[in-house]
């Protein structure tokens, strides 16, 4: 009697099963991404003698409980905040900032390194508005830093930062990039303070 070969298992549906699993994982996957706005809180030590800040060097952004903005005592829409911040930082009131292109208004910030932005919010301000304001302020700094980075090094501040992050530790390249980055940061140091108003208490 002829020997009969064992019949092959039909593997045709294997692809279907695999597809099913694949689609399950595709749907459930959220590629983990932790992005956000980095901030540093002020340390908890009582400063007995705070350094004086001239009123003209202070850019005050107040957000009230209705999420409306008051910038330098004038109501403002969130869309205009970035341009206003750039105008304030880049103002060059003293006339000794050779990379500034501002209007040299004597009643506004004298030098980018002296300019301080104060964000004040009420307890009822919503978090999304607060983040939107923070975002616009950082956007203003990034715009100015990009401008100087392109003028000096021919590439944007973002791309320098990215390269610096990607470079190998202790490599010469990383050191050079860090120097570039620090130079740009020193031109427009980020000085944003956060505080709460007493409104509604």
């Amino acid at each position, binding site marked *: 009697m002829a020997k009969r070969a064992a019949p092959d298992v039909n*593997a045709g549906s*294997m*692809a279907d099963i*695999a*597809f099913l*699993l*694949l689609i399950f*994982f*595709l749907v*459930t*996957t*959220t*590629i*983990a*991404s*932790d*992005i*956000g*706005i*980095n*901030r*540093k*809180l*002020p*340390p*908890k030590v009582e400063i007995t003698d705070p350094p004086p800040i001239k009123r003209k060097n202070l850019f005050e952004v107040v957000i009230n409980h209705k999420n409306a903005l008051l910038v330098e005592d004038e109501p403002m829409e*969130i*869309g205009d905040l970035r341009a206003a911040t750039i105008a304030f930082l880049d103002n060059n009131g003293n006339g000794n900032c050779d990379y500034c292109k501002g209007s040299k208004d004597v009643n506004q910030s004298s030098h980018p390194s002296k300019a301080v932005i104060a964000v004040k*919010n*009420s*307890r*009822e*301000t*919503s*978090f*999304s508005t*607060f*983040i*939107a304001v*923070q*975002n*616009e302020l*950082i*956007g203003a700094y*990034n715009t100015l830093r990009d401008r100087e980075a392109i003028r000096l090094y021919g590439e944007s501040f973002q791309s320098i930062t990215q390269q610096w*992050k990607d470079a190998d530790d202790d490599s010469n390249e990383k050191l050079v990039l860090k120097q570039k980055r620090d130079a740009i940061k020193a031109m427009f140091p980020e000085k944003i303070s*956060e505080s*709460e108003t007493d409104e509604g208490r």
Partner: protein
Amino acid sequence: MSKFKKGGGKELPAISTASLPDIVFMLLFFFMVATVMRQNTLQIENKLPYADQVEKLDKKSSIMYIYAGKPGPGYKKFGTEAKVQLDDKMVSNVAEIQAFVQENRNKVGETRVGRLIAALKVDKNTNMGLIGDVKEQLREVNQLKINYATLNGDPTKKNR
């Protein structure tokens, strides 16, 4: 009548699909590896706000998450006021953040304490009052590096 059939009648051989499962399995394994299951069960609403001037957080191990928002569906017994969630439990007293920070510092080890970042995953409709309290508690234990977690998008658009 010829003995050999010429050309014409020959059909194209079917493309073999035998390797299709292999390809699909490859994709499958990629997604299985890339998938991160959520570590904590969220008991609160957590719709993050949008921002586009963001930085990426690396070094996953030195991040601790502090969640805040209104109690989600199924947890309404905790009330309707926004609450803070640490790990798996909802916290009614923000002072518990101090113990939470200490616990995390012990976990990461002494050498990396300085690189520990507190990521605040806060629902966009939360009032800033609660966040102010959280920040105050973090300052109390000298945890000064914080990060406001956001999604990538333009925040100035309406309906956001």
